[in-house]
């Protein structure tokens, strides 16, 4: 059990990563109205891209973040445009099952390619950090939270000031009205999904530097993304950030008290929120 201050700092740092993971999930849920159970797959793939780039090409992990984002963006676009779009207006459970099936496929492929061992990316500066009294703050995690905020800011700017961003928001508000305004739905859906995937990949790259990665980590991250979005409320970027930090606090403090029950804690939070306040802390609104 670590000290209270260290736990607090860990929670803050973790919150940044969690926010990045949950942001993509929240966009996809808000705009496409599908619960993307494949989200963890993109996190995992982003992590493995960074790992492979570092191990086989010697590329610094921070530099590989744009590449992992780009690759996973393309993958997400293709998946959405040519597979998920086929059944996207079906009841929610259909896409639920579809993305679940796809998740199984990808996890199996990852297991075959990279095997089930734990891997991680350790660079020369991995262990270095600020030391303030009893509290250690690794530089990597500090950079991670900075990148998370940067990406969240970029996302907000993209959504507000670009044509595609506005198209995405309009589709989230009212699908038919957007169509009447001339927005092409299929590519817009695909771009939205791809953005969600890219954000997840960025998070994955950051995760590969601080946590061990293995193909079966997928479920854990999808569950956490779901809990955070439910906790914070579907709708706006600040809501996701709020939910992420709140959840990080619970996870770090709960995890240091009861190690090995991480998913159980996440689930307990979920049930609590759903029973007490289903719309989350910040409430459900159309995607801002």
């Amino acid at each position, binding site marked *: 059990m670590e000290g209270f201050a260290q736990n607090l700092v860990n929670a803050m740092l973790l919150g940044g990563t969690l926010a990045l993971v949950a942001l993509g999930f929240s966009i996809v849920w808000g705009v496409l109205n599908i619960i993307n159970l494949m989200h963890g797959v993109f996190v995992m793939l982003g992590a493995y891209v960074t790992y492979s780039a570092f191990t086989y090409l010697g590329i610094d992990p921070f530099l590989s973040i744009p590449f992992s984002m780009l690759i996973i963006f393309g993958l997400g676009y293709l998946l959405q445009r040519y597979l998920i779009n086929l059944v996207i207006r079906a009841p929610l459970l259909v896409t639920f099952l579809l993305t679940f099936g796809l998740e199984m496929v990808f996890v199996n492929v990852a297991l075959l390619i990279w095997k089930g061992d734990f891997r991680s990316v350790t660079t020369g500066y991995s262990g270095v950090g600020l030391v303030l009294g009893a509290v250690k703050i690794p530089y990597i995690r500090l950079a991670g939270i900075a990148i998370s905020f940067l990406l969240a800011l970029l996302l907000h700017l993209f959504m507000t000031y670009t044509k595609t961003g506005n198209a995405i928001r309009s589709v989230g508000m009212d699908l038919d009205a957007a169509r009447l305004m001339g927005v092409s739905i299929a590519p817009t859906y695909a771009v939205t999904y791809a953005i969600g995937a890219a954000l997840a990949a960025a998070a994955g790259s950051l995760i590969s530097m601080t946590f061990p990665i293995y193909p079966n980590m997928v479920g854990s991250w999808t*569950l956490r993304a779901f809990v955070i979005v439910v906790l914070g409320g579907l709708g706006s970027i600040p809501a996701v950030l709020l939910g992420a930090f709140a959840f990080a606090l619970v996870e770090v403090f709960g995890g240091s008290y009861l190690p090995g*029950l991480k998913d159980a804690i996440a689930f307990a939070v979920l049930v609590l929120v759903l029973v007490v306040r289903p719309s989350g802390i910040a409430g459900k609104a159309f995607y801002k």
Partner: protein
Amino acid sequence: MSEQPPAPLPREKKVPVQVTRFDKVLGQRRNLIYIVVGALVLVVLLALPPLGVSGFWLRTITQAYVLAIMAIGWNFIGGYTGYAAFGNVAFFGLSAYVTGILMKKVGVPFLPSLLTGALFAAAFAVLIGLAVLRLKGHYFAIATLGVAEATREIIADDLGFLLKIPGDLLGLIGLDKAAESLHAAAEKVAITDGPRGIVLPFFQPPFQIGDLTKVQIEAWFFYYLTLSLVILGILGTWWLIRTKLGYSLVAIREDEDSAKMLGINTTWAKVTAFALAAFMAGLAGGINAYWKTFVLPEEVFRIGHTLEMILSTILGGPGTVLGPALGAGIFTLVSSLLIFKLKLGGFHVMITGLFIVIVIVFTPKGVGEFLTGKKPLALSSLLENIRRYRV
């Protein structure tokens, strides 16, 4: 004038509506043909072991029966009630553990252990269900998924925290001695043996049959046990949908608010369906534990089990009597062929996943619809789902 009563109308013969080419081929005696074929299949299945079928096939078919039992259970809550539960593997695993613990540590024989395990799973379902069945649609699905994952972690952690938390609470209020003893107990308790799992005692044939080896008697035992449970499950489903509970469940699926207005106690009905699903999954779990002779948290709480039972039900036709068993049979057959004949062992999970993707996109109501004639056997039926729900 003689008044004659009007001549009675000639009795009209009931002709089933012939919608599809399939119907036309089978003609007016379609239902009769189905019954005859079904009876033949049953006779063949009953006679398989004495016919000297190879051990591989007996095991594969028994595996299919186990999956069918789980799928029949899932059908109650997912197919008939419309609440797609994603966490039924929790019941499978809990029953497996209870069966294993009773047999290994307490020495209870198999059938009572199995029954206790299944009942334990059903009781757990009632407890969880009262909380979770209030949620709708995807929230319910994720909540049940969370239950399954949480159960896995708790079992793998060997329930230690159940003693640790009261211990810490007692320590806070100053009852240190009691807290100490609770903590010590938490360290020493070994109910589920954590991640190491439990090894069950081997099957001992109670009596001898002809000149079969022990292994063969074991195979026969599990084959007939699971087959009889599948038959009982199908008969049970058939009976259930003709009771008030069955109609209540369908009413809940179609429109829950109207069902409530009609005076149906929806909570009780949903919890019962959930408990039935848990019972069936529990039976499958206990049998699986004894059959495979070991239980491990990652194996018995594997999420693939839930996906397989959902896939089987959807493939065969959710909300039908024979659908789950049919889907289980098709799925097990295809995946066994792919894995063992084509040697694609490492792809088992991927095959399941691809199956799900294909079934969801092309036949979301299962293949049962083609057999009952509701859908013509043409390519357009397969594409109908896409046409209806694409962007």
